[in-house]
């Protein structure tokens, strides 16, 4: 169940949209911020607010890589595995991250702090290899810089989970 106030604000967003689908991403992001991830219940609520079927919401939710249909940690680590970062040696960075966090791709650390997922390009192909943690992008990475980045994020970790704050 979402608070009445959130429902009202989402309905207002949909009312302003040219079509329901146009507002779908905003609605899903707000619901994700509320629940921590886009739960089945949230998909149902999004469908109701948007006037779509649950499947039609699922179609959009599973298309976007920053909508999470499974529980995730406080902060998301996206690592670019596209061609430019591959050229720049992203695999070394990925191996390092997996070892440091003790998780496989798609996994969440035992303390629930980070979830590691691949992504496809952040639009800064000259600066690879790069990752994003929460809403911060770290570029020109080496294993040492990765450790520093994780340290910074860990320290600010208890604050509001900022990947959700994008909403």
């Amino acid at each position, binding site marked *: 169940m979402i608070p009445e106030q959130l429902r009202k604000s989402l309905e207002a967003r949909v009312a302003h949209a040219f079509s329901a689908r146009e507002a779908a991403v905003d609605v899903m992001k707000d619901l994700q911020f509320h629940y921590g991830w886009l739960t089945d219940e949230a998909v149902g609520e999004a469908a109701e607010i948007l006037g*779509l*079927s649950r*499947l*039609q919401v*699922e*179609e959009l939710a*599973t*298309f976007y890589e920053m909508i999470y249909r499974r529980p995730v940690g406080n902060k998301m680590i996206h690592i670019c595995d596209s061609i430019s970062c591959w050229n720049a040696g992203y695999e070394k960075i990925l191996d390092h991250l997996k070892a440091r966090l003790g998780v496989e791709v798609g996994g969440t650390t035992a303390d629930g702090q980070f979830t590691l997922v691949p992504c496809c390009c952040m639009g800064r192909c000259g600066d690879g290899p790069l990752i994003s943690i929460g809403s911060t992008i770290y570029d020109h990475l080496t294993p040492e810089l990765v450790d520093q980045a994780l340290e910074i994020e860990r320290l600010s970790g208890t604050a509001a989970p900022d990947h959700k704050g994008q909403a």
Partner: protein
Amino acid sequence: MPKLIIDNLPVEVAPGTTVLEAARSIGITIPHFCYHPALALASACRLCAVKMLDGPVKGIQMSCSLPAQDGMVVSTTDPEALKMRALVIEWLMMNHPHDCPVCDEGGECLLQDFTIAGGHSRRRYQGDKRTHRNQYLGEHVYHEMNRCIQCYRCVRFYQDYAGGTDFGVTGSAGRVYFGRFEDGPLESPFSGNLVDICPTGVFTDKTGRYRARYWDYQFSPSICQHCSVGCNLAPQAFQREVIKIVGRRNDQVNSWFICDRARFDKKGINDPSRPREPKVDGEATDYETALDALAARIYDFLEVHGPESLAFVGSSRLSLEGCLMLGELAANFEAAALSFYGDPAEAKGSQFATELLTEQNVAAPADLASADCIVLLSVDLMNEGPMLAPFIRKASLTGTKVYRVDAPALPSEQRLPFDCLDAATLAEVPLETASRAIVVCHAARTPHEELAPLAAKGVRLAVLQPGPNGFAAGLAARKHGAVPFAEVLAAKKVRGIVAFESDLSAANLKGVTVLGCADWRTSELAQKAGVFLPTTTWMESTGTSINFEGRAQRFERTFRPGLPLRGLDAKYYAQSRYGEPAPGQPEVPPPQPPRIPRGEIPGGQEIEAWKAMARLLEKLGGEPIVEPLTGSWRPLREMDPEAGGERIFGLFKSSEPDTL
């Protein structure tokens, strides 16, 4: 009009035609998966590559999405294009399982055809294949997602064409998945078309899985007999059993598709308890004896009660031939009554529609797609003419307003696949401002005084009939002066009836003898009948059917009637080399068909209803009839069942009943 050259052949096509369609128009098939004439473009499969040798664009292009332009020189056989297509096939086959031998699509699979045509016969890729979990999609469609080649035909059909919302595409890139939000039956009443439209075996017909291969089937062009829309389809029969039913193209009537009732409702035809033997007073006999007995009983009856107490009863299930022949049969006894319908509203409505409709004021299903105002007038569309809905949806998506007037309440699980406005009366609908308005209504429910002025105003009409061949029954009723059976009963003169494929309830037949009954269904009427004559279903018959718009369409016999080989009673095996079952052993038929040649098919005595009528007429002293379509109807004899049918309005010199 763009002129271009394809494989050295010059071709001129209408503006907007794609290169693929232009090639098709001169008989060159460019391989394709995602392209489908009824669906919007996707350009998803990359298989239709051609080489543009000269003209406004050059090099390798996707022919399905490239509009034909002046000066184009196209090669479909250029080595570069062939190489591209071969590589695309190999790439699409990378994740496709090698399960053709256990796939129900094998033998009728577009992917199989083009893989072979593309020369891909050795697997070079040695890695793991992408796999998916399948979903339960209900009792009709089986899901096998690993076979998917991401052509998007299914979702474009299901959501865009048919207006379903519970099936679609999720994920992206290599994780694209076609399915539902969770397991559960597909909700759209057109879901079965996924089976036809999938170029490979992701969706197969669960009701006919693993029964036979494509080359085993007996096929013929046929016409659906579930409602009066008259959709074109092709039953696939194997060993005297209908295994599957697939849609058949008719651009004016059903485009490429059929509804789920047409596709999956095979129970009546395959019903093991279908009456197969002629019977006299419940005793099985042969056809000749039964007909003799019926003729004798009719004579005896006439001696005692006179012709005015006899009624011949048919229904809109009869073919055109059956309707005409029943009229002849009744006309043989001047005072005898003739009925096609029980309910007076149905009888009068059906007949009125045949009088009112003309080539000018009638609307074909496909006309709905280009209408600028559509009214659903007291009609239960999803039951009485579901295949009209996709055409109405098409119009609705382009901005046409659809009004529902006096609409019957829809059951909660059913929805119309388009938006519509409710109006209390027809007067509230702004028909005057429309130039291509169409009113969809039901013959038995719409008052005649409302319809005639509409037609006079230039509004076109789609008057759905109470039964599949209602239009033919209406015409025959007009010609031979039929009366609704309720009125025949009310007059209290009738003492005996002879029924042919009639749906009369036996309950209100007190004091009326059922002298004879001919049908392929089991009914109370058949139980009460003195003489029972089994008839063939439309799939076992050749004949003509007239749909609600007066379009005569020919259907051809798919298979010879008789008991299906599967489940054949052990008695038919008794003479086989397996011999009698050992004493005390159950009569289990051996797994193989009988090896003894037989002259006739077990349970195969059924004949078409009109032939039963003709033979009865002959026994009653009439002339032998070999061809029921005579006079004005003669041109229909040579009709090509695959040419889309023809409207019957041109067949008659005037609309006077006796010229029909």
